[in-house]
C-alpha cells in the first residue's frame, strides 16, 4: 500500500484550472520531489494534499484511507505534516516554545489545561530531541523571529517533525537561501530521509538539491502531470527537457 496516493486531482478557481487531473503515488519511505516551472500548479497541488482547500474533483488517499473530504487538522492527526513556501512560524516565541507547542499538539494535549509531571518530561525530551535533530539546540532560547532565514526554515521543519508525521511535505525548503544555508537544509532533509526513514514529498526549485536527494521526481507543467520517474529517467526525458530543464535558470 502506498503512503500517499492522489487520483486524478483537479482544482479550478473560476475558469482557471490550477491542477488538472494529476495522479501520484508515493511509497512509504520514499523521497519524492515535485518540480515544474513557475505557475505549474505545484503549491496548489500541495494544498490539495494537505487539505488547505478541497479538490474540485479526484481523490486523495493516505495509506489506503480516503481523506479527500477531511479538514487540515484531521489530516495532521493521520500523520501528515507540512511546511510552507513562505515560512510559517510563531515569530514572537522562542525556538524551544515553537517546537514544544508542536510536540504537545502532536501528543494530543491541545485541549489539556494541565499535564502531569511524566507527560511534561516526555514533552521536554521530545522537544530537545527534535531540536537536536534539526541542529537548533544552541538557538533554543532565542525568539524565532530573530533567527536567520535558514534557521527559521529549520525551525519550521522541526515543528513539522515534532508532530511525528508519517508523511512530511516540504514546500520549497531552500527557497531564498544562500549556498551555505541550502547545503545545511539539504543535509537535514537527507538525514531525515536516510536515518529516520521519513516519507517526504518536497517541492523544490534547486535542481542540485532535487537530483541529489530524490528517489523519484514528478514534473508538473501548466497544472498537468508531465512526467514521473527516477532522477535518471527524468533527466533523460525529452519532454521535460523541452518544457522545463531547457528553460531553467
Amino acid at each position, binding site marked *: 500500500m502506498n503512503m500517499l496516493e492522489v487520483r486524478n486531482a483537479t482544482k479550478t478557481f473560476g475558469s482557471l484550472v490550477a491542477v488538472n487531473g494529476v495522479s501520484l503515488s508515493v511509497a512509504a519511505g520514499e523521497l519524492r520531489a515535485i518540480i515544474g516551472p513557475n505557475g505549474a500548479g505545484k503549491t496548489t497541488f500541495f494544498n490539495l494534499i494537505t487539505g488547505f482547500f478541497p479538490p474540485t474533483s479526484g481523490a486523495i488517499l493516505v495509506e489506503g484511507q480516503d481523506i479527500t473530504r477531511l479538514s487540515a487538522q484531521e489530516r495532521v492527526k493521520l500523520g501528515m505534516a507540512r511546511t510552507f513556501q513562505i515560512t510559517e512560524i510563531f515569530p514572537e516565541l*522562542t525556538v524551544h516554545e515553537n517546537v514544544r*507547542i508542536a510536540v504537545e*499538539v*502532536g501528543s494530543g494535549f491541545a*485541549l489539556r489545561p494541565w499535564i502531569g509531571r511524566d507527560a511534561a518530561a516526555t514533552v521536554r525530551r521530545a522537544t530537545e530531541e527534535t531540536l537536536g535533530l534539526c541542529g537548533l*539546540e544552541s538557538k533554543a*532560547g532565542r525568539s524565532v523571529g530573530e533567527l536567520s532565514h535558514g534557521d527559521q526554515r529549520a525551525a519550521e521543519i522541526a*515543528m513539522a517533525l515534532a508532530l511525528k508525521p508519517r508523511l512530511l511535505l516540504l514546500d520549497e525548503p531552500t527557497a531564498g537561501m544562500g549556498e551555505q544555508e541550502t547545503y545545511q537544509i539539504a543535509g537535514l532533509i537527507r538525514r531525515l530521509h536516510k536515518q529516520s526513514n521519513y516519507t517526504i514529498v518536497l517541492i523544490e526549485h534547486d535542481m542540485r538539491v532535487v537530483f541529489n536527494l530524490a528517489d523519484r521526481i514528478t514534473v508538473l507543467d501548466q497544472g498537468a502531470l508531465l512526467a514521473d520517474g527516477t532522477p535518471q529517467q527524468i533527466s533523460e526525458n525529452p519532454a521535460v527537457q523541452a518544457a522545463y530543464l531547457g528553460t531553467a535558470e
Partner: protein
Amino acid sequence: MSTTTIETVLKAPTERRWLPAAIVWVVLLSAPLWLPLVGGYTALASHVLVMGLVAMALNFLLGFTGVMSFGHAAYFGLGVYGAGLTLRYISNSTLLALLFGILLGGLVGTVLGALIARRRGVYFAMVTIAFGQIFYYIAYSWNSFTGGYDGLRGFSRQPLHFGPLVIDIQNNGTLFYYFVLAVFAICIGLMAFLLASPFGRTLIAVRENQRRARFLGIAVDRHIWLSFSISCYFAAAAGALYALLNNFADPMSLHYSLSGEIVIMAVMGGMRSFWGPLVGAAVFVILQDYISSMTENWMSCIGLLFVLVVMFFPRGLLGVLQRRGSP
C-alpha cells in the same frame, strides 16, 4: 551545546517572573492603607479591580489568542444583571449572585461564541459589537424585569456567612474591597494557570500564526471559541462584582462604548503582558474619575487618550517598560 544549557537559557527570564506579580499583590493588598493618603477612596480601588479583571479577561482573548472582541461589555453587563437579578428576585446570597452572574454571561458567551468564532479580524470585531448590543436593548426595553432604562434597583449585596463567621461586606467598604480582591485573585490565578498549560500555549500559537496552528493540527475555530467563552466567564465575573459594588445595574454596562473602554485599558496597559490590562485599567479609571470632575470636555480628554495610545504607545505602558528592560 548540551541540554543543560537549554535549561539555563530558558530559566533566565522565568527567574524574575515572580517580581511583577509580587509588586502587584503587595500594592493591591495594602491599597486600603495608603489610598486615602493620596486622595483615593476604597470604592475607587474596588472599581479599578473590577475593570482590571474585565480588561484581563478581554486580554485573554485579545492578547493571548490574538482575536479582537469589541463586544465584551455585553458579557460584563450580563454578569452585572445576572448578579443583580439574582439578589433582586431569587436569593439574598452574595455568593449565589456572583455565581449566577458568571454563569449568565459565560453561557451566553459560549453560545454566541459558536456563531462568532468563524469570523476573523475586523469582521469578528464588528459581529461581536452588534451581537453585544442585543443585550443592551433587551435590558433597555424589558422594563418589568430589568428596570429598563432606569436600571435595576432594590438589591444590595449581603454579608457573607461561613457558619458562625459573618463577614460584613455589605456595610464595610474595606472588607468588600478584600472580597473583590479575593475573587479577582481566584480569576487571575485560573487565567495564569490556563495560559501556562498546553492549552494556553495553543492559544498563543493561534495568536502568532493561525495558518501554522491549523497545520499543526490545532482546530483553530474551536480554540478561538473556547478562548472566547472562557474570556466571557471572567468578564461576567467582573460584571457580577460590579453589580455588588454599586448595588445597581444599568443598561450602559452592556453598551459598546464600555467595550471600547475595556479594549483601550488592555491596549494602554500592554496587551502582550499579563498584568498590562490591570495597569491600563487603573490608569484609565483614575484618569476618568478625575478628568470628568475637572472639565466639561472630559470626552475630548478620553478621546485624545485613545488617539495618543494608538499613535504613540501601541505596545502599552508595560510593553514600553518591557522593551526597555530587555537588551
